[in-house]
């Protein structure tokens, strides 16, 4: 996926190269109401959106930082040094040939056009603040599937966007959802009509290239009754000594009987703050699954959520987190059982190494009116050395006695005997560790499309290199 020169240049993290910055529009660093209005004006947005942005900005400005997660790392974010809008291409193209060469090469190295041809229904590629490439299979378009970047979605389907935007994650939800609502740019807008099944996944790829960049994509997926879709996202950034900020909001709406699966392999470089709000609402008999892999970033705070609003709906959050040197993955899940006969499953797996820190933070609630709910929470942590840390903060608030709750947690270490066993079968110590780690993540990787699973295993093998003291 990456040529040798690039790999040498970036060491272990293989997506850490950067292109020369050829911006067509770059806002000065810093955030103000004017910046927010300028973004909206540049995008020629309807007034209601401008107003929502401004309200959100004010809320962001007033709202204190979260007092949990990793406060000392959060405090280090310098909002004034971040660029809130940067565009590197003139338009969103639907032919890779028309995408500026540097950018096209980057996505080539990341293997996106190749994957698109082989196994995807559609692709959107975002570079800095804007989508630079976008396409969807013709047959899906004919069936009425809408798959656009969010800005085009707002232009072409304003009524749908107005109805649903912010309905699952209001700007006032938290400080970073407010920030995203104020300065959002790019992301995906998807509508799947009643009864349509999108067989192959659609993919979004997010790339930050510039230094001190803020990326604030906004994604909204609406699956109408009885439809289904699998959305896959990946992300990388160059390695810089200064920090970048990625703060996305994702809203999913699964109408009765619909099925949305949302898979993420997050591999930001170790200078990116990844503070993301992801939430879905599942209506009657609908199903929402978050498959969430966090490998990179400096600090990730992300808790994919599902509100089980309709009777018989189902939620699953399967996540893995890898925390290496200087990294803190504060990840988990939130599920709210609001209706009867709803079921949920959380499986969280985390690995900490070289002083990295992994936290599972989970909340499951069952409301008094929701009868016969079933919930299952499993969190496993694997700690690879003495300097690393793993914490679990599971919360269950069950206000209905008919609920059936199961909770299991485990913390384990790789034993010398396990390594010796694998080494006696011809595997070097690093290979042995990679086999153990990939095995630990297997319940997650088997949920990914095969191509992603292979890539994730390679990524973890790379992380294990040079890790043996």
């Amino acid at each position, binding site marked *: 996926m990456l040529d040798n020169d690039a790999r040498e240049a970036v060491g272990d993290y293989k997506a850490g190269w950067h292109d020369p910055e050829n911006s067509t529009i770059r806002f000065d660093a810093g955030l103000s109401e004017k910046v927010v209005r300028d973004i909206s004006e540049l995008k020629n947005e309807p007034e209601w959106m401008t107003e929502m942005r401004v309200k959100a900005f004010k809320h962001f400005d007033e709202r204190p930082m979260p007092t949990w997660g990793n406060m000392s790392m959060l405090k280090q974010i310098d909002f004034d040094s971040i660029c809130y809008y940067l565009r590197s291409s003139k338009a969103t193209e639907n032919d890779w040939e028309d995408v500026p060469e540097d950018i096209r090469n980057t996505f080539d190295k990341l293997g996106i056009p190749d994957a698109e041809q082989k196994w995807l229904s559609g692709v959107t590629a975002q570079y800095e603040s804007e989508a630079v490439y976008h396409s969807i299979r013709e047959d899906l378009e004919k069936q009425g599937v809408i798959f656009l970047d969010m800005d085009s979605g707002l232009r072409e389907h304003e009524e749908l966007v107005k109805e649903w935007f912010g309905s699952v994650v209001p700007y006032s939800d938290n400080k970073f959802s407010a920030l995203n609502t104020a300065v959002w740019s790019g992301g995906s807008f998807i509508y799947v009509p009643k009864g349509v099944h999108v067989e192959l996944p659609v993919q979004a790829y997010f790339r930050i290239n510039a230094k001190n960049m803020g990326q604030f994509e906004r994604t909204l997926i609406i699956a109408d009754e009885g439809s289904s879709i699998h959305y896959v996202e990946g992300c990388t950034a160059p390695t810089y000594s200064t920090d970048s900020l990625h703060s996305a909001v994702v809203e999913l709406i699964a109408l009765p009987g619909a099925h949305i699966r949302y898979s993420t392999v997050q591999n930001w470089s170790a200078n990116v703050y990844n503070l993301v709000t992801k939430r879905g609402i599942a209506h009657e008999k609908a199903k929402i699954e978050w498959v969430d892999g966090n490998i990179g970033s400096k600090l990730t705070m992300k808790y994919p959520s599902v509100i089980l609003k309709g009777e018989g709906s189902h939620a699953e959050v399967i996540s893995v987190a890898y925390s290496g040197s200087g990294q803190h993955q504060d990840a988990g899940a939130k599920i709210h059982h609001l209706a009867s006969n709803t079921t949920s499953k959380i499986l969280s797996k985390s690995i900490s190494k070289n002083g990295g820190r992994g936290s599972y933070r989970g909340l499951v609630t069952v409301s008094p009116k929701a009868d016969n709910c079933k919930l299952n929470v499993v969190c496993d942590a694997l700690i690879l050395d003495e300097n690393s840390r793993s914490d679990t903060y599971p919360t269950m608030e069950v206000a209905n006695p008919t609920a059936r709750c199961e909770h299991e947690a485990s913390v384990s270490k790789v*034993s*010398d*005997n*396990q390594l*010796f*066993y*694998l*080494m*006696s*079968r*011809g*595997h*070097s*110590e690093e*290979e*042995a560790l990679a*086999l*153990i780690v*990939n*095995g*630990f*993540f*297997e*319940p997650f990787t088997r949920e990914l499309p095969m191509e992603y699973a292979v890539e994730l295993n390679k990524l973890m093998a790379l992380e294990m290199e040079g890790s043996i003291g």
Partner: protein
Amino acid sequence: MSNDSQLLKIQDLYACIDDTSILKGINLEIKPGEIHAIMGRNGSGKTTTANIIMGHPDYEVESGTVELNGENLLEMETWERAREGVFLSFQYPQSVPGLQVGNFLRKSVAAILGEEAAKGKEFRNKLKESMKELDIPSSFLGRYVNDGFSGGEKKRFEILQLMLMKPKLAILDETDSGLDIDGIRTVAKGINAAIRGTESGALIITHYSRILEHVKPDKIHVLISGKIVKTGGPELALELEERGYDWLEEGSED
């Protein structure tokens, strides 16, 4: 190859764990095609001998040499020894949750015998045959390595690996413990298939003579307190069965 054509040659081996000395001068030679057995009580140093040949990090070699075909094993990493042709069937095989048996076998055969050996029809046929020989159902390939295996399944899985990895020297550490008569017979069949009629050799470590009835060893060594106190032919197993180890205790033989 060394000039005296020994497959395994251990000379004056002294070893300890956490400053407790366990092996006190072991000498052992196995020629290509031979199967030897080491018998002895618990704590006599049998498993230590196996672990040292394979290179377990907990044991420290104080002095002496261990050579495979004249190559100094003690200078090699465990995985290099494996690639050189040493195989250890573990007394307590470790589980690796999430690592599928099929995947593990392919990767391990590739690591030891090369990528080509783990590909294609030949490998698949060999795998199928060996599993059949050991009464292992094909569903086994989808399970996780030793995860939730019964004692018997673990031992059979070790022998399956032995058959696929075709080592020059197989060390079988209490492969018979915890097996019933049928299990022992099956496992012995696997050992015979892998070693007999080849240039490979084996070292069987056991308490009991039962497995030795099915795998006729060329030589039997009795280990007491870190020393080999007696070496004999297959008949020695029966003698030990009848008389125990007491008559071999210190003073009786050197």
